[in-house]
């Protein structure tokens, strides 16, 4: 397991290989946050570099009050939001109950289609992924940090600067809305579960 104190101390002493270790350990986390928030690939790559440069620059100010990954996730999230604001890309914050209504209509089977034309499992996953993409920024980030990065409610709360209860609530609401969208698509006859 990575000894964060040792590795940070080595970076602060100018050890570049130690910083490589930090990049490799956290590249997945940063890229997942970026994939959820930044729509353009080129912008993601630019921001990916800027985030790690910022981490390197501010590492001396890191006081180990949280895990290094939580601190890096916080930087990645804040820098992504700043980037979206700077580029004037609208950021949605609130989750409405009809967020997927348009999407589900797209997936509805037409009258003239054969009733046995069902979405395959991959299409179902793609449908869910597209719905996840439609979620507001912080909901997407919370889902990613919880499910992919295995971060706890507390760690996500620290990274996104929100209470643990809010994190739980957002996570529950997002998953429930996504589940409802799947059931709705199923009722429309788009696919069956195995």
């Amino acid at each position, binding site marked *: 397991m990575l000894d964060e104190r040792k590795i940070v101390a080595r970076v602060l002493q100018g050890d570049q290989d130690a910083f490589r270790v930090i*990049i490799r350990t956290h590249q*997945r986390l940063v890229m997942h946050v970026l994939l959820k928030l930044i729509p353009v690939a080129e912008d993601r790559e630019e921001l990916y570099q800027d985030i*790690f440069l910022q981490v*390197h620059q501010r590492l001396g100010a890191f006081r180990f009050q949280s895990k290094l990954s939580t601190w890096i996730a916080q930087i990645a999230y804040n820098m992504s939001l700043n980037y979206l604001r700077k580029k004037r890309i609208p950021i949605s914050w609130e989750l409405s109950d009809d967020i997927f209504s348009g999407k589900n209509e797209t997936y509805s089977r037409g009258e003239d289609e054969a009733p046995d034309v069902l979405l395959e499992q991959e299409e179902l*996953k793609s449908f*869910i*992924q597209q719905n996840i993409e439609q979620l507001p920024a912080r909901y997407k980030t919370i889902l990613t940090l919880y*499910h992919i990065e295995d971060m706890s409610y507390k760690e996500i709360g620290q990274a996104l600067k929100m209470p643990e209860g809010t994190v739980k609530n957002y996570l529950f609401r997002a998953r429930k809305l996504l589940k409802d969208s799947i*059931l709705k698509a*199923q009722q429309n006859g788009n696919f069956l579960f195995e």
Partner: protein
Amino acid sequence: MQKKLSDEDIQRLLSEGDHLEALDKAANPEEVAAYSVLFEVLAEGSTSFEQSEALEEKIMAKISPQSKARWWSFENIAWVLAICTFISITILLLGVLPKHIIENLIAGPLLPLVAFTGGTVMFFQWWSKKWMTKIKKPSSD
């Protein structure tokens, strides 16, 4: 006996990965199935990190210690040339302009002249910084 599970129950059981038999016995299998697929998709994440090594190298290049500052660096030479040009033009003008014009200039609008020169220098300083940033940008990548 079959029991209908609430959203909270299903989410909790799938998150904990525990008591999965309770999910199998649920009276609302459609909801359980929908949540199961959703959790599967959520845990998958993305694998599109092909560029990560190249990006890592770019980051390392940017944080590598900068080469020692040299007096003959491009920026310093540009400044030396600008100052030399200014001095040369001043000497030339002092040699070419009639003496009475120079005397009138010193005796009369000296303050505005100093202000004008100061303003001009500051403008060029601002402009050169902007220009340097512009020409340095592509090389930093």
